[in-house]
Each structure stands twice: as structure tokens, then as C-alpha cells.
């Protein structure tokens, strides 16, 4: 699903990322760990095609993303990659239903109203589709953000610090939810975190330094 060869990235003259070989297979769940500033977020941005690395080859779903045009990379990201941000980044002016609809709309995919209603119901938010994010608890927002990342049934789910500022119980819940739901749509999962508490949930880990 993901293949990385000789990946290097530098901001200016400062190298922040160096991975010689790394491979994530279909359906695997990986933890990317490392101290703050070790390049975890940078790696996720490269995988998402939001950042062109300084050197190296990155393959997503068999495609060398360095060889894709900007437009093709945007399309690949929309169709094959889901992202959950640390700050969730739900759009405040849109209702929950609209926040979920944003995913197919922006990816240029057919609207998935049935799937959206089903997901809302599964999250226990079936009656709150017209609420705005500000009306939700942090935990509910977390679930909506995850649902949005999964609506397009991506092959790769990226999560950056999904458990920052959560207590132990919620950290476990979120980690479990990520792994279960990624498995449900058959997506490979890459979670970047410096949070040691979720390590036990993952069999595979890449440590950056």
C-alpha cells in the first residue's frame, strides 16, 4: 500500500526526515513514533501528497506519487487517502451532514448520502446531522472527523496525534476505533504520535529520530 525508498526531506538546509526503506501492506496498522520534531507530521504530509519530499521515492497504492501531476496527486488523495488531524478541523459553518458530504464533494466523487446517513446513525448522531460542530463534545467531534476521513472508503488512513490531550480512557477508545474502522473499510492505517499510551494497540511501529 505504501512503499518508501530513500526518502529525505529538508526544510531549507535542515534535514528533518530520513527513511531508507519502509513498507506498509494492505490492511496493516502502523504506529509512527518519535520525539517532537522528529518529522512524524512531515512524513504524513509526504504520504498524503501535500508535501513534495526533497529526495526519494514514495509509492501509494502502486503509484509513484513523485511522478504524478499536481492534479493527479489531488485526485489520488481524494479517492485513496483519508486524513484525521490532531485538531480535527471540522468546518464550523457546515452541519455534521455537510461536513461528511465535503469528502466526496471535494474529491469529485458522487455524493454518498446513504453512506453518510448510515455513518451518522452508527456514531449515535443520527438525529444531529443538522447540528454544527460547535454543538458537539470533543469525543463526538473526534468520531465525526474519523467518519469524514472514511466516507470515501480510502485505502490508506492517516492520523496525526489523534490522542493528544485525551485522558487514558479516551485514548484507548480512539485507538480502538481507528483500528476497527480502518479495518472495516479495508484501509491501511498509519498513526503518527509521541503518545506512548497507544503503543500496545499496534503490532508494527516505525520510530523516527
Amino acid at each position: 500500500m505504501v512503499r518508501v525508498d530513500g526518502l529525505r526531506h529538508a526544510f531549507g538546509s535542515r534535514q528533518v526526515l530520513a527513511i531508507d526503506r519502509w513498507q506498509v501492506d494492505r490492511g496493516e496498522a502502523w504506529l509512527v513514533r518519535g520525539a517532537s520534531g522528529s518529522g512524524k507530521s512531515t512524513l504524513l504530509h509526504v504520504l498524503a501528497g501535500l508535501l513534495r519530499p526533497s529526495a526519494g521515492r514514495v509509492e501509494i497504492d502502486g503509484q509513484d506519487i513523485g511522478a504524478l501531476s499536481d492534479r493527479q496527486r489531488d485526485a489520488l488523495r481524494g479517492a485513496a487517502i483519508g486524513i484525521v488531524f490532531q485538531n480535527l478541523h471540522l468546518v464550523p459553518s457546515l452541519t455534521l451532514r455537510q461536513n461528511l458530504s465535503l469528502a466526496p464533494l471535494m474529491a469529485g466523487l458522487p455524493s454518498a448520502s446513504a453512506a453518510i446517513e448510515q455513518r451518522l446513525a452508527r456514531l449515535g448522531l443520527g438525529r444531529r446531522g443538522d447540528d454544527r460542530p460547535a454543538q458537539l463534545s470533543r469525543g463526538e467531534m473526534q468520531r465525526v472527523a474519523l467518519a469524514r476521513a472514511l466516507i470515501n472508503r480510502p485505502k490508506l488512513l492517516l492520523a496525526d496525534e489523534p490522542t493528544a490531550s485525551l485522558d487514558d480512557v479516551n485514548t484507548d477508545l480512539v485507538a480502538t476505533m481507528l483500528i476497527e474502522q480502518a479495518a472495516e473499510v479495508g484501509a491501511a492505517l498509519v498513526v503518527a504520535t509521541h503518545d506512548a499510551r497507544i503503543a500496545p494497540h499496534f503490532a508494527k511501529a516505525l520510530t523516527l529520530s
Partner: protein
Amino acid sequence: MTLFEVGYAYWRHKRLAAALTVLLTALGVAIATAALGLAEQLTARAARDARGIDLVVGAKGSPLQLILSAVFHADVPTGNIALGEAETLQRHALVRFAIPLALGDSVGGFRIVGTTPDLIAHYGGPMASGRMFGSSMEAVLGAEAARKLRAGPGDQFIGAHGMAEGGPAHHDHPYEVVGVLAPTGTVLDRLALTPIESVWDVHAAHQGPAPEREITALLIGYRTPLAAASLPRQINTASRMQAASPAFEIARLAALMGGGLDALRGLAAVLLAAGALAMLAALVAALDERKTDIAVMRALGASPGRVMRLILGESFALAAIGAVLGLAFGHGALAAIAWQAPGAALDPWMPIAEEGWIAVLAMALGPAAGLWPAWRVYRQDVARTLSEG
């Protein structure tokens, strides 16, 4: 969901900013519309008042003053001319018609014009009620004069000396209203018309019989356009009278005021530009606030082009709403002016020549204002914005 709904949801969320932006655009469009509409209609009105009158003959003096007083009834006359001389001119071979005017008095701010039924026929005003004046001291009121004076057939009114309200009154010589004219959209609406003898009788009673009968002016139509080449010069050089061409004097006046009209257009353009700047400010502020939303859209797979379309579409929609509201406000302002100053005989709902351009310009300024913010979105470092939170 569509892109449109995404934009709509945002501006609904930010209704205050949206309303202010739309209002500023609307204000620019409204003032431009009202100012240009006013100028245009007053010009058209002047043309209506002067239509068919080739030449005005009156006492020597300023030709512009002669036209203003005898055609538009907006200035004091240059003086009087001898009836004999006027009658000679009426029989001139090059003259198709010559309508005499005797001015000097007014009622409630409306001028009393001693004339013949020909003047009414010239402007084509049918009677709304009553009949045409026949003998001395009978009067026919223009539509607006009748409305304002609340007078109709059978009523009497007292003339006041002079053109303004509040001159010494001719109490011993009341006029009797015998008819009221239908509105014509010309100066006729604001006149009180009476046989020329009425004016003579009123003034004879006050100043004693004049040594020689006088009138104020003649409105002349040529029998042939060739008359323009000789008749005015003939009158101006070989008589004690002055001849002035309304078309020429209006053109002179328009040239004088043309600068004003250009200034008005300039002001309109500045106001539209101010509206566009307000739009730009609103869009830039909105964009800073929405940086994250837009980064999320990019993360969800939107191309920069799709996001630009969203921003440009929003700015176009805001500008279009502003333009439509502005046109409505502009015509509303004209309606208010028309109501305040019925004398101007404005038609507030008549489309204005520049209207299409104002609307097109306002709508084009929207996306123009949106270009720079959209470009900034295009250049945005999505990865960085997303991790900043």
C-alpha cells in the same frame, strides 16, 4: 451537497459580514444609478419640453434666459415685446406657428401663462375635466398645478404678481378654473393657462392701460428647416426683439453641465470601486479565518482550481446580490426624489441607459476583488496550515 452550498453555508454563518459587504456594494450601485438616472431624466425632460419649438422670440437679453423663462418656465423673462411686432412675425412666410406667451404672475408657485389653446395643443395635453378656456379670466390648470392647488372646474384663484410665491396679490381679479389637463410629463403640467387677455386685463387694472399692448415671448415652429438659416439673424439684426434657438441653448447648457455629468459618472465609478475594495477587505478577512477550512478541502482532495472556483463564485454572488439590491435602492431613491419633487416629473422605474453597465461593472468587480484572495488560497501551504491548527 454542492460547492454553492458550501459557500452559502459560510456566508450564512457570517451573515453580518455578508450583509455589510453586500450593502456597501449596493450603496455604490444605488448612488451611481440614482445620480445618472436623475441626470438622464432631467435631460430627457428638457428635450420633451422643447420638442417642436424651433425658435423663441422675446425681448433682447440673455438668450439662455429667454429659453429658460419661455420654454422651461424656470427663469424670469428678459422683458416684453410689442404685440404689433409679434403679430408681424406670426404672419411671416417662414413661420408655421407662433404661440404667444404673456408671463408675469403666478399662483401658489405655478406660473400663470397668458396664451392661446395652441400651446396646449402643441404639448398634446387632453382635458381631464372641464373645457378649454374661452374668455378673459378663465383658466385651465396643468395636471400637477391642479393637484397641488386642489382646484378643479368651478374653483377660483387669485394671481400673485411675480414668479415666486408671496408676491402682491391681484385680489380684485380672481381667475375661474374651467378645465384641468391630463398629465403630459412636460412643463405644461405645472402651468396655469389663460387667454392672453386675462394678463392684459389684470395689469391694465393695476398700472393703467399700456401705451402699447405687449406680450412676453413667441414660441415658433418653422415652415421649413431652411428658416433656421435666415429667420433668427433677420430678427436679431432688424428688430427690437431677440431670437434664440432652444436646441442651441440646451446644447450650450449641456456642454456647460457636461463636465458635471462626467464628474457624476466619475463619482459613480469611485463608489463602485469603494464597494469592490470593501468586498476585497471582507474576502481577505474571511480567507484568513477560513484558511483551515480551505486546507481541509485540499486535504480531502480538492484541486486548487476547485477552491478558487468556490472563492470566485462567492465573490461573484455577493457582488451580484449587491448589484441587484443597488439597482433597486437606486430606483427607490429616484422614487423618493420623484415624490419629493413631483415637478421634476421623474419616472423612477424607467431603466437608465447606463444601468446595464453599472450592473455588469459591479458584478465584474466581485470576482476581480476575489482574484487576489483566491490566488492566496492557490498558493497556500496546506501541510503547514493543517499542522498549525
